[in-house]
């Protein structure tokens, strides 16, 4: 690992100031993605700004139909939170399926969203529910936030402070985990309310995306059978040693059907 200077930020202002002062600085939250990246020498920041201890970035609260979760809230806290379990059970379930217990004890929601790994779990929930990503400067809706492979709308010196999740209707998440890492080979988050149905697919493509045909079909009939005749276009999907494009297209469909069945009981 290359050498760097470690800075422990006590407040958001301290973190922002340090980030602005050093063009090659990077934020460190749970470190579950960044530390392996540094070990592989895939990044060479001059400074690491540890935001894991900033109290203002932590916590879970429910107010006026919005579930607000601080960016530095760890996966284990989301998975076990009675508030999340009551408001959006699918989100608590999703968090309980990330990686393994040790990873969930460190990794954070903000880190996962900022990283936007094409096989990460949270991005699918955020896109499906159209969550709002709150930063130190502005609010970004999920529709505008995710921009493909490891790319987001965040500026290099921007910090996610919280995520606001609308609490409406029903939702469900199903993934086929990679047997070694737990990352999604394909995962589907389905959200349904009076305004309509949104289906977000992770793991299958170069970034999280909405499966519009499935949304239309489910809009008519909220039933796993409604998806039977559909085929997810395989051309743009990922292909690697773990599976072909066609395999992932099918897996994404199977996960969507399972999520719909879980959500609708049909």
């Amino acid at each position, binding site marked *: *690992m*290359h*050498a*760097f*200077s*470690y800075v*422990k930020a006590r407040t958001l202002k301290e973190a922002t100031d340090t980030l602005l002062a050093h063009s090659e600085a990077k934020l*460190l939250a749970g*470190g*579950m993605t960044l*530390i*392996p990246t*540094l*070990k592989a020498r895939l990044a060479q920041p001059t400074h*690491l700004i*540890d935001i*894991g201890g900033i109290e203002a970035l932590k916590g879970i609260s429910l107010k006026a139909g919005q579930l607000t979760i601080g960016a530095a809230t760890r996966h*284990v806290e989301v998975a076990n939170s009675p508030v999340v379990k009551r408001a959006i059970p699918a989100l608590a379930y999703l968090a309980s399926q990330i*990686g*393994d*217990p*040790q*990873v969930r*004890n*460190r990794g954070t929601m903000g880190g996962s969203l900022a990283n936007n790994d094409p096989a990460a779990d949270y991005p699918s929930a955020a896109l499906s529910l159209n969550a709002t990503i709150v930063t130190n400067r502005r609010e970004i809706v999920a529709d505008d936030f995710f921009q493909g492979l490891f790319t987001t709308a965040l500026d290099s010196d921007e910090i996610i402070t919280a995520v606001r999740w609308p609490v409406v209707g029903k939702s469900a998440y199903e993934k086929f985990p990679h047997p*070694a*890492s*737990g990352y999604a080979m394909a995962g589907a988050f389905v959200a349904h309310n009076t305004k309509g149905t949104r289906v977000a697919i992770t793991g299958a493509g170069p970034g999280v995306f909405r499966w519009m045909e499935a949304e239309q079909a489910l809009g008519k009939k909220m039933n796993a059978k409604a998806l039977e005749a559909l085929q997810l276009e395989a051309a743009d999907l990922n292909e690697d040693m773990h599976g072909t494009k066609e395999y992932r297209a099918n897996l994404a469909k199977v996960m969507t059907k399972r999520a719909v069945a879980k959500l609708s009981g049909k």
Partner: protein
Amino acid sequence: MAKVELTINGKNHCFEVEDRTLLVNLIRDHAQLTGTHVGCDTSQCGACTVHMNGEAIKSCTVFALQANGAQITTIEGLAKNGKLHPVQQAFTQCHALQCGFCTPGMIMSVAGLLKNNPKPTDEQIYHGLEGNLCRCTGYVNIVKAVKKSAELLATQKQSR
């Protein structure tokens, strides 16, 4: 270089480390507690699992400086007054180790699992040990040992 103050197995320590020093290297090289192993160094195998403020974490994927002020428990900290911890007893009784390389991390994970869920089902045991790899046992006896640990911990609680 920077200073880290932390507690390991109830004892206060203060070390000078490089900013990039990993917690596992602090534990093994600075505190000279070599029970915690490094298997993969890529966050996969769980051999480096220790407890940080009571929670199981992979010490190869935490910087020593992130553990400033923390309470760390390693495998050396489990036995009390020369008596093995119930999870350690269960592992020996159930033959849950062969080469033993994964064992310190495995035991720390099991201790973490049982703290949150004192009576796990088989499914919960598999899910709870997903962060630990064993190349020898085939896991069958490890799962047995988790159940035995749960029994031993329950009787220990009753007798107190």
